[in-house]
C-alpha cells in the first residue's frame, strides 16, 4: 500500500513546484521519468534512500501521503500554507517556503536537538508534492491569514 503511491506516479510529475529535498528523491534512477515503468521493486532503492536520509520518519510520512493528509491552501493574494492531518487526527500547520511545523516533534527533534532535518509532516508535504498526492484548496485572503497564525489557546 505504502509504496503504491510512489509506484503509480513518478516524482517528476509533481509539476513546477518540485522541492529542493525532493532532488534527493529524484536522484534515484528508478524514479526518473525517462526510466521505463518498472514494477514495485524498482522503487525499493528509493525507499531505502529516503530512509537513509530521513530516518524513521519515512514510513509514517508515506502513511500520511497514502491517506491524503496533506492540503495546500492558496489565497487570491498568492500566499500559500500547508496543513497536515496527523496520525491522531490533529491538524498541523506547515509553512510553504521554510521549515516549520506546529507539531511537538518539530520543536523537540528538529529545532531543539537538531537530530532530524524534518518531522514526518514536512516530509509528507515533500512526498505529496512529488507524487501529486497533495490536495489543493482555495481560501480567502483572510482565511489564509488565520491559517498562518498559531492556534488560539
Amino acid at each position, binding site marked *: 500500500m505504502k509504496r503504491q503511491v510512489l509506484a503509480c506516479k513518478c516524482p517528476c510529475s509533481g509539476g513546477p513546484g518540485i*522541492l529542493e529535498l525532493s532532488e534527493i528523491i529524484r536522484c534515484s534512477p528508478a524514479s526518473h521519468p525517462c526510466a521505463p515503468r518498472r514494477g514495485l521493486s524498482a522503487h525499493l532503492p528509493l525507499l531505502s534512500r529516503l530512509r537513509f536520509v530521513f530516518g524513521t520518519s519515512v514510513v509514517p510520512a508515506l502513511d500520511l501521503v497514502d491517506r491524503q493528509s496533506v492540503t495546500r491552501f492558496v*489565497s487570491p493574494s498568492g500566499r500559500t500554507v500547508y496543513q497536515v492531518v496527523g496520525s491522531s487526527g490533529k491538524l498541523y500547520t506547515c509553512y*510553504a517556503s521554510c521549515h516549520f511545523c506546529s507539531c511537538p516533534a518539530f520543536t523537540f527533534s528538529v*529545532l531543539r536537538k537538531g537530530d532530524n532535518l524534518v518531522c514526518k509532516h514536512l516530509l509528507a508535504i515533500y512526498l505529496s508534492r512529488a507524487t501529486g498526492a497533495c490536495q489543493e484548496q482555495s481560501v480567502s485572503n*483572510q482565511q489564509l491569514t488565520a491559517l498562518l497564525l498559531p492556534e488560539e489557546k
Partner: protein
Amino acid sequence: MAGAGAVGPRPRPLLLLGPTGSGRSTLLFRAALVGASVVSSARVLFLAPRPLERLPGGKAAGAGAIQRIHFLYPASFQELLQLVASLHQTLSSSSSMIVLDGLEEYLNNCSSPCTAAQLVALLLDTSNYFSQKRSHLSVGCQLIVSMKFPGEAGEEAEHFSAIEHYFPAHLWLHPDTGVDIGLDNQGLTKLIRAHLLQPGTKDQEWMVKFDAQGSMTISPLPCKNETENDTVSGNRPSVSEADATVPSSQS
C-alpha cells in the same frame, strides 16, 4: 521548499546580534535606507517595538529613500504575529526588504521556543512570498532581524537556539576599545567591530565608528586569516550588499 515554482533571487536572511549599546538599531536603520535606495521599486518594511529616538544619519539620507520605508510599531508579540501574517492582504506593493528591530523584546512575551520559531519562520515565509511576487524584478525580498545578544542559559537561550537556524548569515557586533587597531580615539564616542559569519564564505569584518555627533562611518577590516583585502568592494550578493554599500554613504 514546496510550491516555490520560478522564484526570483532570494537574498539570505541576516540576524544582527550585539549587546546593549552596540548600535543595532542605527545599523539596521542604515541598512533599511540602503535597501530603500537601491532601486525605485524598493519598498522597505521597518518593524520595531517603538519609533527610533532620532533618525540616525537623517541628513545624509535621500528624502526619496526614506519615503520608501514603511514604519510599523506592533506593541506585542501577538500583534507582531498578526501583522506579519496579514501582510499579504494589507500591503499593496511587495516589500523588497523586511527589517525587524528588537526581536528580543517581542520574545519576552512569547510563550515557548515553538512560538518563537513560528514567528521567525513566518517572517521568512513572508519574505519568500514577496520574493516570489517580485520574481519579475532582479532582487527578491531581504529579511534582516536584530536581536540583543542572548544570555547563556534560561529562556532567552532556548528561544535563541530555536530561531538561529533560520538565519544562514549572522552579523555579530562587538564593542571595541579601539586601542588595538591604533585609531585616534579623540572625539570618538564608540567603536564597534562587526563580524559577518555565513557558512560557505569567508568571514568578514568591519569597523563601525560613531563620533560625538552620533554619525556613523563604516570601514572594512582586513581579513585575519587572508592577506588580500579586496573582500568588501566585490559584487557580493544579498545580505552583505547593505553592509558593503554603506561605507560610500557615510555622513
